[in-house]
């Protein structure tokens, strides 16, 4: 790992400088993560008095449990839906804003601020708008003959959480796509244009291929966002329902651990989630490293 060529001599000072962060990391990070690993191998009785070592039984049970498998597929649908919606809308906005010269910064400002809104607040907002009895969108949908009700329909509930999660994420994706678009050399596009390529053809043959690194990076970030940062959206809107239709993996860890008090199973789920994030982060880092090298 790199350092400066010249450094300060110091026997105790670097340790003192590192101490606050290391102590907090050990107490609130390493210790709980270790506890999760350890608890995932235990089974507690109903009163939490005795725990027995059961090895990998918690994991085996999980993968035999229909509700966990359901939660896996719910998470996959939710993550893919949110990623697709927020990225495609953001790409449309970014490539349109990129054409603008004078109004570019105004549009950027107007599109960027939802990033600042808490996921839970975004959830409450969309929940209100889609409220089956007083919301405005069910009222409009009713006019075209669709009975919206996310309290009873699994599909409606899933759409609701995807909308809320994507709405919040559009601004983030937009900023990165805009930065990516601005780094594409203008001369390439001009050359293609002289050769007679129309706007759509230019987009698909030049711009989009050059955006693949950004797109790939955003895909990973969005999947991580949809899996982990959307607890607030789900808790504030559907609470995992109706009949588990929006019970994502992170929500289930909370529900099984805090509401259901099934600590062993919840810890095992945490461990699986940790493995998923570590996998995604490794992909992300490898990709970033490769980018830095060329």
């Amino acid at each position, binding site marked *: 790992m790199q*350092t*400066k060529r*010249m*450094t*300060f001599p*110091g026997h105790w*000072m*670097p340790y003192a*400088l*590192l101490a606050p*962060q*290391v102590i*907090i*990391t050990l*107490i*609130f*990070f*390493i210790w*709980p993560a*270790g*506890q*999760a690993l350890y608890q995932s191998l235990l089974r507690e009785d109903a009163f939490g008095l005795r725990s027995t070592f059961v090895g990998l039984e918690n994991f085996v049970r999980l993968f035999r449990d229909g509700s966990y498998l359901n939660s896996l597929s719910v998470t996959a649908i939710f993550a893919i839906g949110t990623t697709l919606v927020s990225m495609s809308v953001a790409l*449309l906005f970014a490539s*349109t804003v990129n*054409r*603008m010269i004078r*109004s570019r910064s105004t*549009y950027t400002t*107007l*599109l*960027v601020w939802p*990033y*600042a809104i*808490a996921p*839970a*607040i975004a959830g*409450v*907002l969309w929940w*209100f708008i889609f409220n089956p009895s*007083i*919301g*405005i969108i069910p009222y409009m949908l009713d006019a075209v003959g669709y009975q919206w009700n996310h309290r009873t329909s699994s599909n409606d509930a899933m759409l609701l959480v995807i909308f809320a999660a994507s*709405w919040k994420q559009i601004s983030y994706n937009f*900023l*990165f796509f805009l930065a990516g678009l601005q780094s594409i050399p203008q001369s390439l596009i*001009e050359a293609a*244009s002289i050769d007679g390529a129309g706007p759509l053809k230019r987009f698909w043959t030049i711009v989009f291929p050059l955006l693949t690194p950004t797109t790939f990076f955003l895909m990973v*970030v969005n999947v991580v966002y949809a899996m982990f*940062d959307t*607890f*607030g959206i789900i*808790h*504030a809107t559907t609470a995992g329902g109706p009949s588990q239709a929006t019970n994502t993996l992170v929500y289930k860890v*909370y529900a099984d*651990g*805090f509401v259901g008090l099934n*600590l062993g199973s919840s810890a095992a789920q945490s461990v699986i989630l*940790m493995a998923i*994030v570590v996998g995604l*982060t490794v992909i992300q880092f490898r990709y970033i490293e490769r980018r830095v090298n060329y």
Partner: protein
Amino acid sequence: MVENRPWANFLAHTVLICGVALVVFPVYIAIVASTQGPGELLRGTMPLLPGSHGLENYTTMWRTGLSRSGAAPAWQMLWNSFVMAMAITIGKLSISILSAFAIVYFRFRFRIFFFWLIFITLMLPVEVRIIPTYQVVADLSMLNSFAGLSIPLIASATATFLFRQFFMTVPEEMLEAARVDGAGPLKFFKDILLPLSITNIAALFVIMFIYGWNQYLWPLLITTDADYTTIVMGIQRMTAEENPQWHLIMAAVVMAALPPVLVILFMQRLFVKGLTETEK
């Protein structure tokens, strides 16, 4: 832009205006709803223009809140959110800049070990190890306190990562000159490194403040006492009632969203810098 076609420009503006409308729509609805009188929202058709009860709703929320659901007044919840966000922001920035300084400017035993110990935290959000972390905080009797709300969330390496990247780009000559002049590490840090990092600190400040303000799951678990309710979790509690008072809830939603949105609008350039630099 390559060629100038009026209809293409017109189309582009149309797309963007629709986009802005889509992005603004939920907040517009919230503002409209927050200005209605009690019961007006329950008639079945959502009004599309602001009503006349705005001032009344906002004052009620600000002063007393929905005391029926045991919630604190909005001013107090906003204050709690502010204290929590500031504690997280300042805490993260100060521990990160110190550890990045140690890692970049010193050579010592176990340096790589400490580096990885800190960097492993980049990966695991608090949500996935929520129950054991809760237990640690409970064992340290930090439930229902600002320390319990903020300190566990300070343990993350994003800011350390950014400061390290930045310190690596600071020219070697700075350090050489400082050492020739006989400056010790702390003097170098205070007089040279800190002033150079001001933009990075400001950019990170924006991002960390929003992160802290928007926390939800953690305050929900750590605090049961209304004195520590943050505005984001307070709103969720109000909506969970039997008959939600939508006009008042939406006033609270607008008040909860305003501070972070203002921070972004005023500090947009720094925010973009911080965001792109942390993530890439």
